[in-house]
């Protein structure tokens, strides 16, 4: 936070405060200024919507949203897929991790309009009917969560971590899972779950 509260003359608007400081707050707003879909005028005042087609968990959804809507907010607020969590909205916690064409991404750091061509997988898309994904099973078996707020992100990240071949040892898992914070700190159980699921995959 850089603007000084000059006594008697503090005429800063909230806008300048946020623009000059909080990258996250600016993330969604500023991004719209660079989106070609919306004109400068509509981007500035908000409101102008665009049609976006998202392919999520094997289903295609057509929604009308402002171009500045993040993939995370599109999933949660527009598609009702609230399994994906918002912990920080600025790429720091990993709670919003989803897969885009099989790669883990932080859905708060990408706009829905930018992901129209991708196949998105969220935690809701891992189960096959009543059967849990092996990583979900392993999380339950190893008690790899407490409150559960980081869990969908941890699980999506774990699926990708195993896929990437980054689950070879405890140290490797700890390193490659460190983009997902768990404030309850179930880390050692998460590591055990990832190792177990990876092992199962190799069998």
């Amino acid at each position: 936070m850089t603007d000084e509260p000059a006594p008697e003359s503090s005429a800063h608007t909230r806008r300048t405060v946020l623009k000059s400081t909080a990258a996250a707050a600016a993330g969604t707003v500023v991004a719209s200024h660079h989106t070609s879909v919306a004109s400068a005028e509509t981007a500035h005042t908000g409101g102008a919507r665009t049609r976006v087609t998202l392919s999520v968990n094997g289903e295609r959804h057509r929604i009308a949203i402002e171009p500045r809507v993040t993939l995370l907010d599109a999933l949660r607020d527009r598609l009702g897929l609230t399994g994906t969590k918002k912990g920080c909205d600025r790429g720091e916690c990993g709670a919003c991790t989803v897969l885009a064409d099989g790669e883990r991404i932080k859905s708060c750091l990408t706009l829905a309009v930018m992901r129209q061509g991708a196949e998105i997988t969220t935690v809701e898309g891992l189960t096959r009917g009543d059967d849990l994904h092996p990583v979900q099973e392993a999380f339950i078996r190893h008690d790899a969560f407490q409150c559960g707020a980081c869990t969908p992100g941890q699980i999506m990240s774990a699926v990708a971590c195993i896929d990437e071949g980054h689950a070879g040892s405890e140290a490797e898992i700890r390193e490659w899972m460190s983009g997902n914070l768990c404030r309850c700190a179930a880390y050692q159980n998460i590591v055990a779950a990832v190792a177990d699921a990876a092992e199962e995959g190799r069998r």
Partner: protein
Amino acid sequence: MTGLVGRGVARVDGRAKVTGAARYAADHEIPGMLHGHLVLSTVARGEITELDTSAALALPGVVAVLTHRDLPPLRVPSFPYLKGFVPMQDTRVHHSGQPVAHVVAETPEQAREAANLVRVRYRAERPTAHLAHALDEAFLPPLFRDEPNEFVRGDAGAALEAAAVRVEQDYSSPMMHHNPIEPHSSTAVWDGNSLTLYESAQGIVFTRRVVSIAFDLPEANIRIISPYLGGGFGAKGPTWSHTLLNAAVAREVGRPVRVTLTRAQMYTMNGHRAEYRRNLRLGATREGRLTAIVDTSTAQLTRTDHGVYNTSESTLRLYDCPNVHVRQLGVRLDLPSSSYMRSPETTAHFGLETALDELAHELGVDPVELRIRNHASADPHSGEPYSSKHLLDCYRIAARAFGWARRDPRPGSMRDGNVRVGWGMATETHTFSAIQSNVELTVDVDGRATLRAATQEIGTGTYTVITQVAADELGMPLEHVTTLLGDTAYPDAALSAASATVASVIGPVSQAAQDARKAVIALAVADPRSPLHGVPAEDVVAERGYLFARGDRGRRDSYRGALARHGRPVIVTGSRLNSSGHSYGAVFVEVRFDPRLATLRVSRVVTAYDPGRVLNHRTAHGQVIGGVTWGIGFALMEHTMVDPHTARVVNPNLSTYLVPVSADTPSVESFFVDRPDKGSTALGARGFGETPGTGVPAAIGNAIFHATGRRLRDVPFTRDKLL
């Protein structure tokens, strides 16, 4: 009894949590709902002189921008509302990041952009932000929650004077923030004069009380819903101003409104662990018997409240010392209110357990031995005997598993190549509360049971442990019992804080389940259509949902059969009381320090605990790994920084406020004595959640001293202090 209690059964809410089906506060879909966004003050002290909302209001989708000019008067609620004032009631600014306007729009993006367009002009006054700048203003705050801030036992001054050995040092710890992964969210839905809140709250019954006072509404008109909580660690225990403001705004605009705090807003809106300075003076005999402790701490307070949340409980009660003087002073600063944060007693305990290590070194006594020599076998302050205490076993078990006997006590003596290895230990202890709790248990006509209580699942395993205990007492399989929590429509129960849940709720659950079992058995034996007809009730046992005659297992009925014939549910309640107390343990840590890079790693942690009876070994172990990791964060990284000129938090995010990640933490080994405390009505279990971790910061500092010969007394022990 089917042996379910104690077993590490998998969490009953596991499936909901791994599939994304669990609904947290911001996940509930509410038709017609608007999105709110708070505008926070950018100065820390002063007056709002001008508020221009026109640009914000002109944005498409914006429904309203409310300020102190628009809101109706709200009464300032008492505890657990901590701020001492309700924002947006007048023009006064008490801290940076205080709500000054509340924007409501159709989409979250519109609300957020509009919030950026609200222009606020202030007459700013120079704030005081740092404890160091106002220490000469320290005072002894008045009673808080009926507790004094000064405790005297014996004559500590004289005993210190006469002591053969003395240790006197200053210890300090900075402001810290809880940072649960789920941000606070509140959704207000009004129906006439009735209000429903979807809330991230650690104590829905308490939130209801606060809201009822603020709005002058009967509690019966208020319903709080919070089936899952994405962590809280104290941040969601008190009710904070966004909940009150959002409800007031929803009433004004006549539609449901949701407000969710941003991560940055969570650094001024919902409390923090206060910064502390502590002067500790220990007096002891040459044999290491403590004769005096003088503990003078100074905490951040605000100009609007004087809550001291980090009490010096362990100084007062942990060791058998006849002369103790505790003073908990405070200094008023222009900062947001502090609050409880996981294991509040850690703050004082860090000083005490470090000072003891200094004393042990001074005397040439082993640190474990020093603690054993000062072990208290009755409460040193009240003189009351303990109903159960196995702390000495904890030292023994953990020391052996750690290999403590192989420790060379000379600092710097243990090396692994270039790396210096240090071993340190500390006692772990925390208070737990017992809060009057009630539950309702229904055995339905299908023979299945449902338990309802207005407590919460915060991640500690409340759903699981309640279900286990109920199923065990009923004699049903786990799958036949459903536990419903997080709704004030259920009977009032404990808050998920102060390590209170198990201690408070398990007694009522087991009582209700026993009564329900007896009631159903009574139905069966009195029913001529039951195979158990005429069997004396005390000869009937319940297992796996069936009811058997003890001597003749061929005579068999079931909950399902008995209830189907009865034709209506059996409903019972439980409300057995418990009392507060302490849990104990010991922690041993190994650190590895590379002097070339000044890098420090915690490489090994071994713990042992006495929490009374362990109800679920998995969830109890979860509290251990969580608490120990918090201890590592406290010792090595967590630190909220406040700019001294503006009194603003300068690192309100998770990339500059560091919390431990997976790669920062070792795996923790834990042991439990696991003997029931006959003084606890919760099947012999005590409250435990906040005990693990309390000793970790001191144990790490003690290990650093052992590795390097350098004594650190100011957390966090960052690299600059290790160079």
